[in-house]
């Protein structure tokens, strides 16, 4: 029989080893430090924050609004836009003091 198969009895040593603490409190903020490292390595995804969500919602609404306005103008057609373009051109080419023609 291999002598290593039979470990010598030593109740004192066994008792002492069994008394050893199995836990050790990490220092304060340890979990945050590890999370930072996980984020750096792309292991975790940062949690969505309320501010980010609000900004995203605002962009979304702005996009919807712009799209709706563009659709509305397309429906009305270019004839509705022409007077505004003409007025703008008149204003741009007029001289100070001269009355602007109203369309």
């Amino acid at each position, binding site marked *: 029989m291999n002598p290593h198969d039979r470990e010598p009895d030593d109740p004192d040593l066994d008792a002492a080893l069994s008394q050893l603490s*199995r836990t050790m409190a990490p220092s304060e903020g340890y979990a945050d430090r590890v999370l930072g490292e996980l984020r750096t390595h792309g292991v975790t995804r940062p949690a969505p924050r309320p501010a980010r969500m609000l900004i995203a919602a605002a962009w979304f609404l702005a996009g919807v609004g712009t799209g709706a306005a563009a659709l509305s103008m397309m429906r009305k057609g270019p004839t509705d836009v022409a007077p505004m373009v003409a007025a703008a051109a008149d204003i741009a080419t007029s001289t100070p003091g001269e009355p602007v023609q109203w369309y």
Partner: protein
Amino acid sequence: MPIHRPFAQADDIEVIDAFRQGRSEAAARELIERHSPRLLRTVARVLGEHSGDAEDVLQEGWVRGLAAIPQYRGEAAFPTWMTRIALRCALDYLRRHNRAPLLSLDEARTVATPPIDRELTTDIEHALTRLSPHARSVVVLHDIEGWTHAEIGEELSIAVGTSKAHLFHARRKLRALLAHERPRRASPTEETA
């Protein structure tokens, strides 16, 4: 401000599933908060006198472990699985730094040991640091963590017989180191007289 822990009541499998689905920081935090105290103690013991680096080594273990969560099949309990990863990190650290050379028993006897805490457990912790990294790992995993020699052999890539031999010699060395320390503690007045 107290940190919100939405998974505090969930078991490990539920938390791991949540992490797999969204790689959420809340799930990762729960696993870290829950298992770090025990993992840290194991890593610190394996590192021996370099236990001051245990938090950094375990941090590397968490990065490796959570990155490998997709490969976790639940065949072993999560703490056991993570212990294996943390243990590998600790042994890698010792290899990288070429640290903790094996002290022979005679060398250990001649090294002047500073008067430390007189508690027996402290003596054992101290004696453990005098073992080689592999011998220390075997003692920690077998006698403290309750692993079998087969598990240790698989993890450390050594034969079962080698694991038993490591434990045999390590325990003999521990006994000798403690026997050397105990008389010093038992008769302090004789030493100082």
